[in-house]
């Protein structure tokens, strides 16, 4: 797609071996292709060459001095020596300098065993230092923020970390202060290094300078067992490796899949695993007796739940919710359990605001972002909901000058230029229809004004990628029509849908929706959607609910409805890893295995099905959802079409999903049924004196369930807040840091006041999915709500911090 002229191929000789590479290739990369590994510290293939560490010195004939391979481009006929005596001498000298002030504390260093400084010193370095003066001392164990500890003495100043923060994350908070051998890795005024991507710096650090708090002094790399897994914290599906020791997870590590994660993972994905070792992790099922949850065995819990589900199923009065947090195999088995065993189509994985998890046509791949000239985001808050996708956007904008257009009710916090088009939620469909119209009627009739301007940008773009959150069916339909139009005019277009849960797309494709079977097979009939099931349960019209790996009590937009439903339904069984806000209502709680404790496949937001391997064994009374479902089926004595053998199950799944790829504009994928809810309530609410429209905002570290119980991310979790426009804050007499009580239809929540211009007037942007202040109490099924705001505590009146006095 890019219009770069074709690059010439050049042939050079490296250590006697001929290699042909495109013009512009660096010697270090050419050598790699020829099979020679030149040692590097500062060089990193994902970042621009820096030429700082000098370890990659090579000899190039006809150039008198040794050259750095990381910043020298190949030339035709070049003759390179990477192992000559002169090169060895050069490397030895460089290593002596790099080690000059190095503390050589390898025996207590986390990096020991996987350290490039250690390895290259063994391979190329001098055996001893000639320095007789004392070494320069620098701060050790510098607390760099919630995730990272820095040892300045071990640092060799390769700047990979600061360049990562600059070139990859585009955040530029991590910098080098001072100069020469006094240089220090630092942040502005010693402030915390807070980045969603901070953990990556510990991996790219070639020495033991940056270490992660989660892994510090926990294990030696050679003691770790590795399992190739896939992160399921969001729908991007970054590949990672789970490293465990004696059956306990010690850390996670990137496992580069350029097409998906480009070699990075975010901190939520990296650090969310210690909840498995907290007391709050469910290690055995619970049965509610006399209003209290009592521990039970796996078989007991299955027996009770199976019986109650059977009774309800006979009356056709049972519902199943979940799938988006299960594997593809489990989601497939869940709908099979609903349809074949319980005989109901009342199954839905959608327990948040998302309605659709895939585009019906014009499907894009994550890599398409790399070629896009215009990226249009509708509503999805990519930095919070899909951080690694966001890195791709940042690169496209910052490095390739792609245009970024964000259409939504408020502007997300992005470190790259982004044009924000403020549109109230219900009105996005209208905008899209206008745009489709204008595009259709051609350049001449585009006219003036805002819509024309956007239409012009669309028309000028060579390749357009749209990213949406699958929430507003009307808007999505309009967007797809707009894409059809652009497609008709020969613009390559593509659509990505950010999933509400890690495997939302897998669940949708597996048939965890009321009107579609596996592989988007149209059933010609429909069960109830999750919203309808909750409504029925709240009215006393549903006898039993089974919820697998979902937490609607916190995530479903109408929290009040869910609360009434879960209280009223005669029987509720929940399978989850911790006692979630939903599981707290359950009559039977089944202890479910985490992704690390099972194997299978998950489907990411672009529809890529990826395998993950089991890393550790689950506790005895903990079963994977697959095992739980199989036990149910067995207890109910039903013919169970789900094979026990994992490969056979996957083959079956593949077979039924073959049709699942979004198709051409003329033959789009069928859509999951959507219940009748209005998305326009935000426009209808008139903001009176203290009444605000409530828009929930996602944050990476928010959420209930496992994330609420994980000590690894506890320090990063935000406190519940509501952001008000400065004018509104002044009007209701609050300042940043005050506490307000938001009173809405289903109760009230207390949140901290933030003041910022990103909030439109009359709107409170409220942090979503926080157990201590669930915003869904204020929302209706549209996903929006309204509430009054009353100051309950002034920041000035907050009690002073108690000072402990010790005698």
């Amino acid at each position, binding site marked *: 797609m890019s219009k770069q002229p074709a690059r010439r191929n050049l042939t050079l000789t490296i250590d006697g071996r001929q290699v042909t590479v495109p013009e512009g290739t660096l010697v270090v990369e050419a050598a790699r292709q020829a099979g020679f590994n030149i040692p590097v510290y500062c060089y990193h293939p994902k970042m621009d060459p820096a030429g700082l560490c000098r370890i990659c010195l090579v000899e190039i004939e006809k150039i008198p001095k040794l050259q750095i391979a990381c910043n020298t481009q190949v030339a035709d006929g070049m003759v390179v020596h990477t192992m000559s005596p002169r090169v060895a001498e050069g490397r030895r000298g460089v290593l002596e300098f790099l080690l000059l002030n190095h503390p050589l504390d390898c025996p207590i260093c986390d990096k020991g065993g996987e350290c490039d400084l250690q390895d290259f010193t063994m391979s190329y370095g001098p055996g001893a230092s000639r320095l007789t003066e004392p070494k320069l001392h620098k701060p050790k164990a510098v607390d760099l923020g919630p995730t990272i500890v820095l040892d300045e003495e071990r640092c060799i100043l390769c700047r990979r970390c600061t360049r990562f923060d600059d070139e990859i994350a585009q955040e530029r908070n991590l*910098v080098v202060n001072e100069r020469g051998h006094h240089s220090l890795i630092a942040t*502005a*005024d010693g402030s915390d290094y807070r980045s969603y991507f901070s953990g990556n710096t510990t991996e790219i650090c070639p020495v033991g300078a940056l270490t992660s708090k989660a892994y510090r002094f926990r294990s030696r790399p050679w003691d770790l067992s590795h399992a190739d897994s896939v992160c399921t914290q969001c729908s991007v599906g970054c590949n990672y490796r789970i490293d465990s020791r004696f059956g306990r997870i010690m850390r996670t590590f990137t496992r580069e899949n350029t097409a998906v994660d480009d070699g990075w993972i975010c901190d939520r994905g990296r650090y969310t695993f210690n909840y498995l070792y907290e007391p709050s992790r469910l290690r055995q099922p619970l049965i509610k007796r006399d209003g209290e949850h009592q521990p039970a065995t796996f078989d007991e819990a299955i027996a009770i739940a199976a019986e109650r589900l059977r009774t309800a199923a006979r009356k056709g009065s049972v519902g199943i919710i979940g799938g988006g947090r299960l594997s593809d195999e489990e989601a497939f088995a869940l709908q099979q359990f609903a349809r074949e065993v319980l005989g109901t189509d009342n199954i839905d994985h959608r327990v948040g605001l998302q309605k659709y998890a895939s585009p019906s046509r014009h499907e894009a791949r994550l890599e398409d972002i790399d070629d896009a000239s215009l990226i249009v985001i509708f509503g999805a808050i990519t930095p919070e909901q899909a951080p690694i996708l966001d890195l791709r956007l940042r690169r496209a904008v910052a490095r390739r000058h792609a245009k970024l257009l964000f259409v939504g009710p408020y502007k997300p916090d992005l470190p790259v230029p982004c044009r924000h088009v403020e549109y109230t939620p219900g009105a996005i469909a209208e905008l899209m229809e206008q745009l489709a119209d204008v595009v259709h009627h051609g350049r001449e009739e585009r006219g003036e004004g805002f819509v024309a301007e956007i239409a012009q940008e669309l028309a000028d773009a060579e390749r357009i990628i749209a990213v949406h959150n699958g929430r507003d069916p009307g808007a999505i339909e309009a967007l797809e029509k707009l894409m059809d139009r652009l497609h008709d005019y020969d613009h390559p277009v593509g659509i990505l849908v950010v999933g509400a849960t890690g495997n939302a797309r897998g669940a949708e494709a597996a048939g965890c929706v009321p009107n579609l079977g596996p592989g988007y097979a149209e059933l010609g009939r429909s069960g109830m959607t999750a919203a309808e099931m909750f409504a029925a349960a709240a009215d006393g019209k549903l006898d039993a609910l089974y919820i697998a790996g979902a937490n609607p009590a916190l995530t479903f937009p109408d929290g009040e409805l869910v609360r009434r439903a879960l209280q009223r339904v005669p029987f509720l069984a929940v399978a989850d890893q911790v006692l979630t806000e939903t599981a707290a209502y359950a009559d039977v709680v089944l202890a479910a295995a985490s992704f690390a404790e099972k194997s299978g496949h998950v489907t990411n937001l672009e529809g890529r099905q990826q395998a993950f391997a089991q890393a550790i064994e689950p506790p005895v009374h903990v079963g994977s959802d697959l095992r739980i479902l199989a036990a149910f089926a067995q207890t109910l004595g039903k013919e169970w079409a789900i094979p026990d053998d994992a490969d056979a199950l996957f083959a079956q799944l593949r077979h039924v999903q073959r049709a699942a790829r979004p198709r051409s504009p003329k033959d789009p994928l069928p859509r999951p049924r959507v219940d009748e809810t209005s998305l326009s309530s935000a426009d209808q609410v008139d903001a009176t004196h203290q009444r605000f429209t409530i828009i929930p905002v996602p944050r990476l570290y928010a959420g209930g369930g496992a994330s609420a119980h994980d000590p690894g991310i506890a320090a990063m979790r935000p406190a519940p807040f509501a952001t008000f426009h400065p004018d509104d804050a002044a009007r209701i007499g609050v300042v940043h840091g005050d506490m307000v009580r938001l009173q809405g239809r289903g109760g009230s929540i207390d949140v901290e006041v933030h003041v910022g211009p990103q909030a439109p007037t009359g709107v409170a942007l409220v942090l979503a999915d926080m157990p201590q202040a669930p915003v869904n109490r204020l929302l209706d099924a549209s996903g929006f709500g309204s509430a009054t705001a009353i100051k309950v505590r002034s920041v000035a009146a907050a009690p002073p911090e108690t000072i402990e006095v010790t005698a």
Partner: protein
Amino acid sequence: MTPERERRASELVARYPESQSALIPFLQFCQAHDGYVTQQAIHDAAEIAGITPGEAESIASFYTLLFKEPVGKHKIQVCRTLSCMLRGADELQQHVRQRLGLGNGESSPDGRFYYEEVECLAACDRAPCLQHNLEFHYDVTPEDFDRLLDEWRASDPGVSMPAE
């Protein structure tokens, strides 16, 4: 930002093709007033240059003539590089330290004097060289220093360093 600084900032930004170029002169301007580079100055500079405070601090900390904390009004810097050392800078340093009662990088408690040993001042032909508030003094002997010190004691340069 004070109106005065804002005015200065816009002048400086207008002077260069890239607004980032205004960073150092702006910090010098702030230091001339505050005596050192305050965190407020770092944040203001970052804003006018369109960079993060971290980047502004990184750049500021590279330069030894931008002070990150309050220092004495009379800034006395003696060269410690080869030519000066061969011509008696070590003796001069020892003398200055003793007369001022200050170690390398220290300021006097009354806030009047700051002493620092610095790398080459580019005056090797007239070593040893001493710099006082950006002004060079050449071929300095301990006796010369005593005379200069008497002059400085009698004067008050204010907190300022010349801005440019």
